[in-house]
C-alpha cells in the first residue's frame, strides 16, 4: 500500500485533533477529510483508525454507506445530476445519460484528464427549477439534453 506523504499525515492528524472531545467523531473527521482532499483512500482510513482507535472496518463501513464520501479522487469539476422525484419526472435521467455519453464515463467515475466527475444526486431542494444540475455547488436550472454540450464546453473553455 502506498505510503502517505508526511504533510498529509500531519494535516489529517490535525483534523482528528479538532474533534478529540467529541464522543463519536468519525463522521466529522471524515467529512473534513473529504472536503479537504476530495476522497478518502484506505491508507487514510487506516491512519484515522490508528489515531482514533475506531476499527478500520467501522470507518470503511461509514465511507461506503454514505454516497457523500468517495474512495477515488474526484475531478476538478463535480457534475451532480439530480435524480430526485421532481427532476426525474422532468427528464433528468436523459440529462445524466447525455453527460455520460459526452464525457465517456459512467456515474461515479472521473474523466481521464481528471477534469470531470459525474455524480448522481438525490434531491438538492431545487425542485422548482427541475431538472437541476449542480456543478461544484453552482446550480443549473431546467437543464435540457441540448444544453449539456454547452455546459461542458463552458468548463473546458475555462481550462483552455
Amino acid at each position: 500500500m502506498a505510503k502517505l506523504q508526511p504533510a498529509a499525515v500531519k494535516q489529517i492528524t490535525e483534523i482528528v485533533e479538532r474533534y478529540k472531545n467529541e464522543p463519536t467523531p468519525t463522521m466529522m473527521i471524515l467529512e473534513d477529510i473529504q472536503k479537504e482532499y476530495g476522497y478518502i483512500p484506505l491508507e487514510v482510513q487506516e491512519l484515522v483508525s490508528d489515531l482514533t482507535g475506531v476499527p478500520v472496518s467501522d470507518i470503511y463501513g461509514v465511507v461506503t454507506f454514505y454516497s457523500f464520501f468517495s474512495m477515488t479522487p474526484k475531478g476538478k469539476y463535480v457534475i451532480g445530476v439530480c435524480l430526485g422525484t421532481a427532476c426525474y419526472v422532468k427528464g433528468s435521467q436523459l440529462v445524466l445519460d447525455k453527460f455520460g455519453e459526452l464525457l465517456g464515463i459512467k456515474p461515479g467515475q472521473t474523466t481521464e484528464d481528471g477534469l470531470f466527475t459525474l455524480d448522481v444526486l438525490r434531491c438538492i431542494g431545487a425542485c422548482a427549477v427541475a431538472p437541476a444540475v449542480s456543478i461544484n455547488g453552482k446550480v443549473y436550472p431546467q437543464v435540457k439534453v441540448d444544453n449539456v454540450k454547452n455546459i461542458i464546453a463552458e468548463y473546458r473553455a475555462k481550462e483552455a
Partner: protein
Amino acid sequence: MALVNIKINGQPYQVDSSLTVLEAARKCGYEIPSLCAFNHGKCSKASCRVCLVEVVGARGLVASCVYPVNEGMEIITNSVKATEARRASVELILSNHEKNCLQCPKNGHCELLKVAEMVGARDQKYVGQQTEKTVDEVAPGIIRNSAKCILCGRCIERCKEAHGISILGFENRGFKTIVSPVQNRSFANSPCLQCGQCVNVCPTGALMEHSEIEKVDEAFKAGKKVIVQTAPAVRAAIAEEFGEKIGTVGTGKMVAALRRLGFYRVFDVNFGADLTIMEEAHELIERITKKVAPLPQLTSCSPGWINYLEYFYPELIPNLSTCKSPHMMQGAITKSYFAKSHDIDPKDIFVVSIMPCTAKKYEASRKEMPNDIDAVLTTRELAKLIKRAGIKWDKLPDEEFDQDLLGEYSGAGVIFGVTGGVMEAALRTAYFWLTGEEYGKINFTEVRGFEAVKEATLNIKGTEISVAVTSGMANAKKLLDEIKAGTSKYAFIEVMCCPGGCINGGGQPYVHPALLPNEDDDILDTYKAKRASVLYSEDERQVIRQSHNNRDIQKLYKDFLGEPGSELAEELCHTTYNANREKYPDNK
C-alpha cells in the same frame, strides 16, 4: 437485583429488571426465535427482526432482544400478528440466502434452519434478486461465503469484543450490504488473526473453518503412515458433538474413535506441551539470568496471538518466546526422532493435528515451518469424520493414547488448553530448575479463572518474579502497551488469543443455546468453566504433574535432543517471526 412484575401471554411472572424481553421470556419458558442476538439474548443491532413480539401499549411490534422489561409490562409472544411478522422476517432473510442446506458445511448446526422450522417458513415466499456472491477460500484458517450471510452482525460484535480489532464490518448499503473485511477482501489480505471466534457465533454457514478433511483422506489413499495428535482442549469439548452435556470428559472415547478411523498412531499433543515447557522455561531462565533477550517473555503457543503481535505490535517480537507451539514441535519431533527410531522415511509420515483452533491451520502453513504438520482438523471436523465413519460414540470404550516414545504426558501438559495453564505448567518447571526442588503445592491457583488479567508474584529463593496471564486481544493490549512504555513489571506473560484459552477456541463445538435444549439457560456464562474443569480434573488425576518429570521427555533429551536449548532443539523446536506483515496489502 430488582424484580419487576410482568405478564407473558396472560400469565404473571416476576423477573429481574435488567433483562430484555427476549431473556425474560426464555426464563419463563417461552422461546422467541432470534438470529442476531447472541450474548445472553442481548443484541446491539436488532438487525434480523426475527424476535418480534407484541407489548401492550407499544407502537407496533417490538424487537424483544433490545427491549427491556418494565414493571407491569404485558407481553404477547404468540399472537397471530407476532408469529406472522416473525415468519415474514425469516422468509425475507431466506429470499436472499443460498439455501443449499443439504450440502452446507453447517448442516446440523444451523440456527437459521432451526428458526425457519420454528416460525414455519413457507417455500420460496419471496422470490427476487440475490446479492452478488463472494466466496473467500484463500485464508488457510477460515472461509467466508457471503451468499449464506444473513447480515446479523454477530461476527462483527465478537471480533470487537474479544480482540478490539473488528476485522469484519458492514460495507455498502441497502441491497448491496455485505459483511466482510474492508473492500470485500480475503481474510488473508487483512490483519485477521484467523482465530475463528467469528465462526463460533455465525448462525449460518457464512463463516466456517477451512476444511482439510479431504487432505487427510488423500493421505490415507496414498498409503501414508497417518499419525494423529490431539490438543488438550479437544477432549474437553468433543463429547458435545455427540449430544453429551458441556463439560463431559471425551478423552478415552476420542482415542478409541481415532484408532477405529485407522490412524497409524494416536498421540497426545500434551507431550508436545511438556516439550514446550522444557524449552520455554529454559528460555525464560536464560532471559532472567543471562539477559539474552528482553523481559517480559511472552508465550508463543497461540497462533492467533502471534498474528496479533506481528500485525499490531511488531516491535515486541523480541519479547516473544521463540518456541514453536506444542503441536508444531511435536510434528517436528515425530518426523525426526520418532521416524528415526522406527526407521521410517519422514516423507511417508503424514501428521494430522486435531485442534480446537482455526488459526492452527494458518500456523501449519507458515513459511517458517512448512513441513512440521501436514493437516489440521478442528474439533468439529473430527466429529464429522467420526460421524461419517458411522462410529457410535456411546458404544465406544475408553482407550489410552499410544505409548510409543511420544506417549507419556504430565498434568502440566493437559492444562495448556485453558487460560493460565501454560503459565502454571511453566512455573512448576521453572521453580524446580531455579531452586532444585518441586513447588510444594503444585497448583498455582492465582492464574486460574477467566478474569481479563490475572497476576501472581512468585518468591523463588528470595527473587520475586511477577507474572501475568491474559486472553482475548482486547485484554492483552493493556499489557502490551505497558511493555512498550517500559512500565511492565512482569517477567513472564501468558497470552492466549481466544477469551478463556483454547477450550473456547474457534474450532470447538458451537455453543448455540437454541440448538442445545438440554443445557441450562445460563450456558453461555458457564460453558468455559465447564470445559476447563475437564482439563483441571485430568491434571489432578495424573501421577506426574510436571513437564520435566515426564519420562518420555527425559528420554527424548537423553537420546536425541541433548539439553533444552541445544542446537538440535533450536532447530526443531524454535521458530522465527515476521515483523513486516502488511495489514492491508494492495493485493486484495
